[in-house]
């Protein structure tokens, strides 16, 4: 279970510009080409499906391969900060790149093996921009599932935690209408993977189906940072998550609760520094450190999709003690399917971090000069972390065009208005950046499944 405040990644990225700016520019074109070739090859190989078998076997095949990909570019109106789709990615569009293909592009493949009707195993590998600006494939899913009854299953291994309605398919762009799920909500808990166990139980009462899922486990997620290693780690331990999804006809309603213990070891030296300054420093460290902090998440969402149109909305709130505080986000989105081929949509979304964006820190008056300098440095680092709390409201208009049965083109225009003094969800802030204003984003992508 990984429950983490987005500020962790944003702050870290703000300090990584030199590394990112130097390395990203040179190789972005190469990577774009690699992703394009991979996607193209995948699409071409997709259309070899059915041959004429005389006696069809109605059981599912023992071995199956499926894949998905997104090739997309994003442009930002703000040149003094970067936009990224998750806190795990460095760079982005705006300051680092005028147009960035790294924000949304990815390719994934999944192998499913079914030795018996009750036992199955899946491995899913995804290549996308990572915390270190590499595209090394990583394993998102790798688990063995045992279907005890048609309605009760247990999985052991790595899964993606389904915190939101679409969090477990957010990388499968073909599965949802937007260029990307609204980051005001989906960045509250930037779910990586969960290593552990989960159980799912389905019960139908009349026309309502309820699927209850409980997950327990741990995870380590790396995000970009200016530490010597180039990354920081969100360590989630003793995580547990509960989700109940109700489906009745066109309506889906979902409720979530999750909790975990979060540690960011790379922040430990900062708070150890504070603890050297006596009771005042210890009090500050106790309030803000990120050492086995209890993180709690609650969320609810609903979608209604009668075919010709859809409407959906979600709300979530995450509470992390510590420097990350509390954030809440929501969105509402609706679209109409014109001839079931072109789907224009609008989305309204907001994220709001609670609490102060600054702290007076250690009292410097009366300290001898060397100590005063150290205390000032600690205060500065603490306030840099506190200042990244996001407040923004975004209006998006866009459309999806299903131009062939396994591929969709999506265009989207976003306008985000930042709260007073906030940089919203932007990162890598440059000296010329002015908080409290706003940003326009234009995104275009093609999403495929194969």
């Amino acid at each position, binding site marked *: 279970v990984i429950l983490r405040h987005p500020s962790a990644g944003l702050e870290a990225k703000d300090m990584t510009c030199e590394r990112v700016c130097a390395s990203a520019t040179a190789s972005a074109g190469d990577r774009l080409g690699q992703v394009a070739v991979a996607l193209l090859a995948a699409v071409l190989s997709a259309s070899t499906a059915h041959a004429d078998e005389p006696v*069809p076997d109605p059981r*599912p095949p023992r071995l199956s391969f499926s894949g998905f990909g997104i090739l997309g570019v994003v442009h930002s109106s703000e040149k003094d900060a970067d936009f990224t789709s998750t806190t795990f990615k460095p760079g982005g569009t705006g300051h680092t790149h005028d147009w960035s293909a790294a924000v949304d592009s990815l390719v994934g493949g999944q192998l499913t093996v079914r030795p018996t009707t009750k036992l199955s195993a899946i491995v899913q590998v995804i290549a996308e921009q990572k915390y270190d600006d590499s595209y090394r494939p990583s394993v998102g899913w790798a688990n063995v599932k045992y279907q005890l009854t048609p309605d009760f299953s247990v999985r052991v291994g790595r899964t993606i935690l389904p915190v939101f309605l679409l969090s477990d398919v957010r990388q499968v762009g073909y599965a949802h209408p937007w260029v990307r799920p609204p980051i005001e909500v989906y960045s509250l808990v930037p779910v990586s993977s969960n290593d552990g166990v989960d159980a799912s139980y389905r019960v139908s009462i009349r026309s309502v189906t309820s699927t209850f899922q409980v997950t327990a486990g741990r995870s380590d997620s790396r995000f970009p940072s200016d530490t010597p290693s180039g990354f920081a780690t969100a360590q989630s331990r003793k995580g547990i998550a509960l989700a109940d999804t109700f489906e009745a006809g066109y309506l889906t309603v979902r409720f979530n609760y999750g909790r975990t213990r979060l540690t960011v070891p790379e922040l430990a030296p900062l708070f150890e520094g504070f603890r050297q300054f006596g009771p005042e420093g210890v009090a500050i460290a106790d309030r803000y450190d990120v050492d086995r902090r209890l993180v709690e998440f609650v969320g609810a969402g609903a979608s209604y999709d009668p*075919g*010709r149109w859809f409407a959906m909305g979600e709300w979530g709130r995450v509470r992390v003690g510590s420097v990350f505080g509390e954030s809440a986000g929501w969105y509402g989105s609706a679209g109409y399917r014109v001839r079931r*081929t072109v789907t224009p949509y609008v989305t309204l979304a907001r994220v709001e971090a609670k609490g102060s964006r600054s702290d007076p820190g250690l009292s410097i008056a009366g300290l001898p000069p060397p100590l005063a300098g150290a205390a000032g440095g600690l205060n500065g680092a603490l306030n840099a972390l506190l200042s990244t709390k996001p407040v923004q409201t975004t209006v998006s208009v866009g459309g999806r065009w*299903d131009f062939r*049965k396994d591929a969709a083109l999506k265009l989207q225009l976003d306008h985000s208005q930042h709260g007073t003094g906030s940089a919203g969800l932007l990162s890598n802030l440059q000296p010329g950046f002015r908080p409290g204003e706003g940003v326009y984003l234009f995104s275009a992508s093609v999403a495929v499944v194969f």
Partner: protein
Amino acid sequence: MGHTARAGLVTATFAGLILYAGAASADVVVVVSTKSPVDTLSRSQVVDLFLGKSSRFPGGRSAVPIDQAEGSDARNAFYLAFADKSPAQVKAHWSKVIFTGRGQPPQAVASGGLVKKVLAGNAGAIGYLERSEVDDSVKIVLSQ
């Protein structure tokens, strides 16, 4: 480039993209083997079986849904008439299920004749046919 110019670009592009989607309107019925104890099903029971939301008939017998080939008139008409979904919407639904390890779509066969063959050998199987293909080897459990 101004913001209005960008918004205009989006609008113009989408206006240009709207194509005629094609309307499959074959008369499709849902069938099971004559050996099946199931006589009638509701639209939502059928849709739940074919979209993987349920794996059993009312009463608890396990069900094996049989699809027809992607792109066939029968398949397009079936999902449009009973589930209100276009081929792309059905594919989007299954991409959500497959890539979360929750299941696999029904096996597809190449023709209505093959649907009847599978049903003849499997009392738990359920399929759909164009009404003109129905014969006394199958039993209609739901019509449009």
